[in-house]
């Protein structure tokens, strides 16, 4: 079992899974939650080369997030990836 990192620090080419939120903003967490950022959902950094905002692939969608705000989402490397 690998350690938690934040969404903003994901590396390209590795599949992660969402493990939770570390946030003070209820709105932000709820919004992402409803968009499908629930525990266990696979997520990866999209290959789009843009530094900030970052673009992630989740549930077949591309979602752009600010790097600073993406620090509130916790992910972990998928072991079976």
């Amino acid at each position, binding site marked *: 079992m690998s350690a938690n990192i934040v969404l903003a620090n994901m590396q390209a080419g590795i599949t992660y899974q969402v493990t939770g939120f570390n946030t003070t903003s209820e709105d932000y967490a709820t919004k992402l939650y409803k*968009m499908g950022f629930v525990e266990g959902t696979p997520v990866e950094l*999209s290959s789009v*080369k*843009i530094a900030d905002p970052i*673009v992630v692939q989740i549930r077949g*969608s591309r979602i*752009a997030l600010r790097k600073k705000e993406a620090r509130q989402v916790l992910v972990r490397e998928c072991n079976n990836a």
Partner: protein
Amino acid sequence: MHKIERIAIAGVPNCGKTTLFNSLTGARQKVGNWPGVTVEKIEGTFPLQESRVELVDLPGTYNLSPDTEDQKVAERVIRDGEYDLIINVVDATNLSRNLYLTMDLKERTNQIIVLLNMVDVAENEGIEIDIDRLSKDLGLPVIPVVAVDKSSVKKAVVAIEQRVADLPAHDSHVSTKEVMDTVKKYAHIDAICGRVAREKKDRSENLTTRIDNVVMNRFAAIPIFLASMFVTFWFAIGLGSVFIDFFDIIGGLLFVDIPEALLSAVGSPEWLTVAIAGGIGAGCQTVATFIPVVFFMFLALAILEDLGYMARVGVVADKFMRKIGLPGSAFIPMIVGFGCTVPAVMAARTLSSKRDRFMTIFMAPFMSCGARLPVYALFCAALFGAYSGLAVFLIYLSGLFMAILTGFFLKNTLFKGTPSHFVMDLPLYHAPRVSAVFKSSWLRLKSFIKRAGTIVVTAVFVLSLFNSIGYENGEMSFGNEDSQSSILAHAGKAISPVFEPMGITKDNWPASVALFTGLFAKEAIVGTVNALYSSMDMNQATVAEVAEEPAELDIGGTITEAFTTVGEGLVGVISSVDLLGLGLIAEDQETISEEIGASSSVYKHIAANFTVFSAFAYLLFVLMYFPCLAVIGAARKEMGGYYAAVMAIYATLLAWAVATFFYQVTEGHNVVYILLSLLTLVGIYGWLYLLGKKEQEKTLALAPLPIIKNCS
């Protein structure tokens, strides 16, 4: 079997609801919609079960607990049960994101039919979907469809008719036991997707990602954005102005020449002929000349939107928008503002926080809209000569700068508070659908023509009335057109001291009066300046002459002439890339006066009454002051009367301060006025600050008592 009278179409953004809606209803739309997004429900009808049923297209939403105003519209319609059946459009290429809404809908009603859209695209991408299995797992009828393909839609309608009969009895009180939390819903969806969908290819490196790699590239993003704006302007104004002559000539024929001939034929009194053909008719002709530019601007923006590029602009813009405390998505309504400010104000609904929405609405009017361009063109042609293009470009740039300044002002005063986060869904790119794009542009154009037409006709009518009523030595009289004694002239002179610091002299009262008609619509300034200046040197005799002269009506010849101009114009536009209609401006005064429907004597007056600097100051004022009434109306609808009023006052004061500062620094050199304009700027800031403070106190007073924190 129950009877279906009203059907709502629900789905996530970009799943093809509107395409399906257009395919079903044909040309039978009741309400138009603005670019940016479907921000209001749209209604239409289509035949089902041998009768016409009402169809409601809802704004796209991911779930039924939405956080933006446009999505709340969708939630409200579904909550209030304003339907007999919901058609849930589901994008076959992305079941996982789409089915969440289906789950939410299932909690509210059991009258749902799922239309699985874009099955063709899914197939191409190597996704196989077991439709029977999906239907069984969802417990809902599922019908595959390709919304862009008419025959596929026809088949789907037949299928809907069959399935309607099998629907269970209407039951909107679905038991709360079935309500699941988000995690369970997604677990359920994942399970369904695992059973019904099979993906063959690796989809990560598809076309959309490849395009995004270029479009949002760290270095190329801004140049590409600027290039796309350049093409938009070139398309709208360059291509649009090709048709200006055409509309001018046809408009002149329809609204001026023909009514004139008809009225003379029936022997109407001369004053009536002049009033109808010369006044109202000429006003309509002026509106007609704007039609092509406005249409092409709407069309260009609709194409950008349909392509999926707007969302990327939001991402690229986020870097600098966050500096004024706004999400990048707030930049999209502002681009829409280059077309028309009304839809820009409405497009702000897509933003989630109230603060973001209000700030965007305050900033949007500074993006120079299509209706202001004819005013710039008129003044630049009279005074700036070869530098006209540069002058217009500088005005657009000033507008952008003022929008940013407004952002900084508001961020620190009226709209303090936490800047909101930025999350943006990037849809798949797809080729713009010709019929959909044209249809939406046409609907927007129609409402523009209606609005502008009514305003120009009314403004010209009221103006000519006031221009006719005179007041001299305590006596009222009629027939004072063109004289210095008309009420209009008196009023114009009375208010001109206000505009004197920005370089409008007392003798130049028509310019002041034009600012008043500009309140209704900024394009009305051209008509007013034109009418008042030309009336200044026209005596009654020439008016009569003009009225008698055009008895010969050559309809065929005029129409031929109109078409010739389009041909000539097209050759011109192809041979030169014409940004911001610079070609329109660079042309000699004779041509331009024809193109924007002004008489050439107006240039002499503009040149005589303005200097280069006072004209630029005047144009700055026109750019910034009171957004037209339609915008204030839209702003009131979105923010309430209080903020709409604050916005109007703010814009007008800022316009005065900036125009005065510019004029006094460049030409007036009056230290008192320079200080006054700077003081006004400080005053505006202070005023907004106080308003913000008052507002904060109000919310604090209304809010429940704050929880007392640990005092240690």
